């Protein structure tokens, strides 16, 4: 049984913790995106949805209590559809699409909503209460390294200079600004009406606005400004706030269905997840994960690197992005054509789904067939998925 993606939407990405989504709860945000996506599948009887699978990298506080189930209840107006939450850090949003596809392949389900949500504004990086295993922390210093240190290690080991990183970051912003101006994201974004209620001069006030454009990209940035930023993770390092991904708020979902469901709904499929692989690498150089994962996924799909039309390589850090491009020999011209996480942002658990949605739209607009969505994943992992347009 093949599994097909028949719809996909994402929210615009907000800057965390001071952006326009800073007071929007993750469950509200996810429910809104799902509802917007379902508008594109008008014939669907919602009770026929088998599951809602939500990727999230910090499933606690606002994102806790199995947010997947809560999102199902909030978005579908029925209690018949279950929900679950999946965490593989930064590939969570892609992982859920893989789980949905696999379930359908195996005949376990016919219709699944899969994607991810992450609001980094209200929740500190890593969560509120980090309790590392003292024994492990002592024995393996780098297992609990913050991502920034791993980016520094990759920069050193793979000799990615500060200049290369800043240039890569600069290009990310320029590409994203170009894409936004050209309206490249317009169709995939579900605009959100935000209402904030607050007290001003002792009075309860509210303000409303529509949020429909990624707010991370900076048209005014330049190499000179980027080169003056100080390193933030290593006093002697090269990784700065300007050549690392931004912390963000966002949600993205797709709908995956079986052939049976396709017929029932009478819709044409957009794409399918042709392959998906996850690999382990040393935690210290976490950023290099895609170097292992991409060939595995291509092999699984029976494709060559040259068959690939576009790549969405999550820009956790410029250092690891540059290193991955160099090590895999990817054609830089097909990588992140509309900019990446350094410009647009990286809402951890949402990112995989967001990049999948972006990839489908990009391939469609260029009338191309194969795309790879790939990312490095915390504590030494890499993930890659092959998207095939139908």
């Amino acid at each position: 049984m093949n599994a097909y993606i028949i719809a996909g939407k994402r929210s615009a990405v907000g800057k965390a913790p001071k952006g326009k989504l800073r007071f929007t709860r993750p469950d509200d945000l996810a429910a809104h995106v799902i509802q917007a996506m379902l508008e594109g599948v008008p014939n669907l009887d919602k009770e026929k949805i088998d599951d809602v699978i939500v990727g999230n990298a910090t499933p606690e506080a606002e994102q806790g209590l199995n947010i997947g189930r809560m999102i199902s209840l909030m978005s579908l107006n029925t209690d018949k559809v279950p929900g679950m939450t999946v965490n593989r850090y930064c590939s969570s949003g892609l992982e859920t699409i893989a789980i949905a596809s696999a379930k359908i392949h195996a005949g376990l389900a016919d219709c699944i909503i899969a994607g991810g949500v992450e609001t980094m504004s209200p929740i500190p990086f890593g969560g509120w209460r980090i309790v590392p295993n003292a024994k492990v922390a002592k024995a393996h210093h780098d297992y609990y390294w913050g991502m920034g240190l791993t980016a520094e290690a990759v920069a050193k080991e793979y000799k990615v200079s500060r200049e290369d990183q800043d240039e890569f970051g600069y290009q990310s912003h320029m590409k994203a600004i170009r894409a936004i101006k050209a309206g490249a994201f317009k169709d995939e974004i579900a605009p959100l009406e935000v209402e904030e209620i607050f007290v001003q001069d002792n009075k309860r006030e509210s303000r409303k606005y529509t949020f429909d454009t990624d707010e991370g990209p900076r048209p005014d940035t330049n190499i000179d400004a980027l080169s003056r930023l100080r390193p933030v993770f290593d006093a002697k390092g090269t990784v700065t706030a300007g050549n690392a991904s931004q912390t963000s708020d966002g949600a993205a979902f797709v709908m995956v269905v079986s052939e049976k469901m396709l017929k029932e709904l009478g819709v044409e499929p957009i794409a399918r997840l042709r392959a998906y692989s996850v690999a382990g690498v040393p935690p210290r150089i976490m950023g290099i994960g895609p170097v292992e994962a991409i060939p595995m996924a291509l092999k699984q799909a029976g494709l060559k690197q040259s068959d690939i039309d576009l790549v969405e390589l999550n820009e956790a850090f410029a250092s690891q992005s540059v290193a991955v491009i160099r090590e895999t020999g990817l054609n830089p011209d097909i990588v992140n054509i509309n900019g990446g996480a350094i410009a647009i942002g990286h809402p951890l658990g949402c990112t995989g789904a967001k990049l999948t949605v972006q990839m489908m739209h990009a391939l469609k607009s260029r009338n191309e067939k194969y795309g790879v969505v790939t990312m490095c994943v915390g504590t030494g992992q890499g993930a890659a998925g092959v998207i095939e347009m139908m």
Partner: protein
Amino acid sequence: MTKRRINKVAVLGSGIMGSRIACHFANIGVQVLLLDIVPKELNDKEKAKGLTIDSKTVRNRIVNDSLQSAIKSNPSPIYDKSAVKLIETGNFDDDLPGIADCDWVMEVIIERLDIKQQLFEKVEKHRKPGTIISSNTSGIPIQLMNKDRSDDFKKHFCGTHFFNPPRYLMLLEIIPGPDTGEQVLDFLMDYGKRFLGKTTVLCKDTPAFIANRVGVFSIMWMFHYVKENGLTVDEIDKLTGPVIGRPKSATFRTTDVVGLDTLVHVANGLKDNVPDDEMKHLFEIPDYIQHMVDNDMLGSKTKKGFFKKIKDEKGKSEILTLDLEKMDYVPRSKPKFQSLEMAKAEDNLPKRIKTLFNAQDKAGKFYRDHFLSIMAYVSNRVPEISDEVYRLDDALKAGFGYEMGPFETWDAIGFQEGLKALKEDGVKYAAWIDEMAKSGAASFYRIHEGKQQFWNHLSASYEDIPGQEGTVSLSVAKSKGIVWQNAGTTITDLGDGVLNIEFHTKMNTIGGEVLAGLNKAIDLAEAEYEALVVYNEGGNFSAGANVGLIFMMAAEQEMDELNFAVKQFQQTMMRVRYSSIPVIAAPHQLTLGGGCELCLHADKVVAHAELYMGLVEFGVGVIPGGGGTKEFALRLADELRDGDIRNNQFRHRLMTIAQAKVATSAKEAFKLGYLREGVDEVVMNRTLQLTIAKNAAMAMVEKGYTQPKERSDIKVLGNEGLGLVYVGAETMAAGNYMSEHDRLISEKLGWVMSGGDLSYPQEVSESYLLDMERKAFLELCSTQKTLERLQSMVKTGKVLRN
């Protein structure tokens, strides 16, 4: 009449002084309306933003910029960031009506009579009757400023002269105008003292009032003398610094900081306005000083004055000194005087001054000339600028940071000896001195029947210095005899069953004698008294444990002895808390390491507002070993509630020690967890600190004090905490934010604060933690890198990061 209260003040003018005065009021919780002029035109930034001259941000730009630059200045004018919220800014054109809500309006604008008068005319329109109005002028006669004002205005108007920086310099001169009401003056004298923490000195409306009149005379005397006698700038600064109880910046460095132009301005003002001053010729500006003014050699503000900081090719800074002969900058010299070297050994300042005055070398001649000229000058200023000698001494001490005023200096030299020298050298002093000598008086000050007295030339007798009623003075208490003494401490009876122990070691460091003294004081108090106060009148409360001693034992690796010494320290600290009498610590200024640990164990701390407290042991490569680490673990446990995310508080406590954070004020010491809200207290005025500490001790006795039981319910986190410690240390070390040795010390600290590698959070006792703390301390003392840090501190006084 209802009691006067100050809830809100208006400060008119936001320059260097105005903005900082505003900050100091905010420091004590008073709301401030700070106003300044509206800018004449838009700046480029405002133009680019499309603002107009009517925009609020433009209209308040001057005041807001001044306030921001004040807040960012170093040393900070604020105790704590939260104070800033109390300051509301505005401008004279729009916001002057706001002064109607203020209880005190203070003018701190440009020193021009016509402009001040214009402002007061406007103030009069808005102020509510009865509101105090004052001017911070340093030179304009008060009587000229309230011309054409109403009777109510005049009655409530006077001069209130703060010294820069107002938070740190203790002097507040109060200058009555001809019509100022007695009640207003009484109120301000008291308010300035108790609320603002200042030494309030009632002045007469004479040119430059008291402190600047005498202080500037002293500097001008020096300006002339140095040139005429072929001395150098470095020599004068060596001679007029801490060795005679004056600030480190001595004469010329102080001038550079104040600004030569400011000084010349005051001197010129004096020259024109003191026709009867017998020394007015000294207010003439010497040619070389004029040359400096004309060539922008004004000091720090123009980056060159008597000193100039340069950077060599390697980027290393060097300070050059002005050679007054060549009028060019030359490398700094390190002048040596035989008499000075000998006097260094004398810790007692009055004795040292006497020795120096009588010395026979070049330095001795300088001191004789200098002290005699000042002694004569101040004698001639009575009664012109003050009727009472103590006001002159108070003003000089509080305004210029002198440890002793001119009359006190004379007393140190000896009244008769000083007088004899004046006669021998033909220096013209005041006639009342002869009268005083005839009467047989032997000093300007004395302690008589438990009261501090001064010689009042008007009554030709000794009189009590006012304001002593209800206050405790250590020197008065000591005059009645001391209870016990050893090389490091003195125990004094403060009366009412309260003992005081003071340290008098170098920097009041804590070693064997101090610990013995503390134990003795507690023994005595338990046996025969009711309470103990730990207070001293040195420059600092305590710089910590005696590092030299620790270094010696550690260098020799005499671990048993070191273990014994640390244990003794811990046990003494524990006795501070666990004794049958309340122990009150009353710290001021530097209260570091062991000094801080002592306060952590006191039943109550009555701190001076200017408190620089911290556990700084990391700097010498160890963790707090006198119960400080244990106490932080204990306080952490007490802060945590069931279900709390424990990471944040744990990290806060840990990092406070790991980063050797020193509070920059008593207020900040609460934020850092060194002081306890609801238990410990802050006193603004240093001279009232002992009284308030003693009263606090008596109140605890009165309420009924029971010795607390040692704690065995300190919840530590075990492995949960340890994991955080390892990861945190790794993140800092891998990120090159600390050295491998810092990692080791951090991990030891974390180990103690977590209670070790316990499988689950559980309750442990103080003695369990003290043993861990001591063990970690000793282990660190066995490492080469800690030895290097200790050595660096002992040899150079500098923190080594290795």
